[in-house]
């Protein structure tokens, strides 16, 4: 896994797990790799992975079954989508607005492009 320079590693790992849950690679209700397996495959300290898992557990995205391992919680996708919507609006979208202003792109331009994107079935 390529890590980004700026975000803490434990959050990047949490993001990658969320991504896998959203895309269905790790379906709701199924077991995910153990902290140790994840640490080995990412070449990171197991305590860092444990922190990612703690974070996701506290958000109700995954849960620990004692002695068995971590599982994707039912409803995890909804939780992740809600969380990511918030960060999209306060992060990516804000950055997009800033660029639109600098580059002189109007909301009508965006609407046209968006309609084209949708009609081509690119989503």
């Amino acid at each position, binding site marked *: 896994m390529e*890590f*980004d*320079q*700026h*975000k*803490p*590693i434990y*959050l*990047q790992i949490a993001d990658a797990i969320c991504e896998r849950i959203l895309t269905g690679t790790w379906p709701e209700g199924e077991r995910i790799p153990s902290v*140790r397996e994840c*640490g*080995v*495959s*990412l*070449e*990171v*300290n*197991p*305590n*860092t992975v444990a*922190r990612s898992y703690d974070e996701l557990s506290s958000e109700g995205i995954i849960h620990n079954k004692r002695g068995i391992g971590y599982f994707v919680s039912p409803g995890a996708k909804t939780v992740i989508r809600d969380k990511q919507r918030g960060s999209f609006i306060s992060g990516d979208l804000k950055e997009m607005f800033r660029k639109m202003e600098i580059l002189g792109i109007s909301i009508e331009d965006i609407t046209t492009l968006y309609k084209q994107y949708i009609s081509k079935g690119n989503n």
Partner: protein
Amino acid sequence: MDTNNPVVKIDHLKFNYKKHIVFEDLSLEMEPGRIYGLLGENGVGKTTLLRTICGLLRAESGECTVMGMRSASRNPEMLKDIYFVPELFVAPPISVKRFIQSNSLLYPRWDAAQFYKLCLTFDVDPSYRFDKLSHGQQKKALIAFALALNTRVLLMDEPSNGLDIPSKTTLRRVISECATEDRVIAISTHQVRDLENLIDPIIILDRSGMILNANIEQISERLLFTVSPTPDPGAYWSETSLNGYYQVVPNHDGLPSRVNLEALFNATLRNKETFKKLFK
């Protein structure tokens, strides 16, 4: 045994090689379940510290204990639960297999199957004569041996030196795998990039002793690693980057950022007294 007690405890250690003072007054503790990264400029005593912990060197004054036993006494009870991988190692003229068979006898938690598995992972053939292997292969064989001993304390001096790029990846994987909750691993290194994301907590030494012993979480709570368009006069460290200044600044707002070990090291060397207080 209580797993939260420090396994390695160093108390007001003083060490010198004749007139050359290495540690004037060094105190630090290492807890189980952690992979300590020992950083410091050349000659600050990283190797001396590792050798003192395992009883190869004796300090002038002060105390170094491992699992409550004084390292300097070289108690067999302690020695069977500690191993030191030196940076340089003279391989004996016997096969790796014979080496591990005789040298593993002192260690009750030695796992031969784990050793052979690690050799496979590292692509080392243990039937070869140890001294006929290349430097990198020798190093990997010794690291595989050290990990499979399953001692509660494992000390490694510059383990990534001499390894090729794929072996460095393997090294990170196997260390992560072998870092169990009852084990203290301490690694000294100049190659922070080789072990980035693996070593945590970080210990930084200088000639006066220890500047910092903190985990990545504590470091990122106190320091912000960030890029900004203008240099911050209050920055602990600043360097020009493609999109402005890459800086280490006080983290007043508790923002999350990724700890960059090189920047941390540079910032620490320039702000020793401030950092000593910050990470007390």
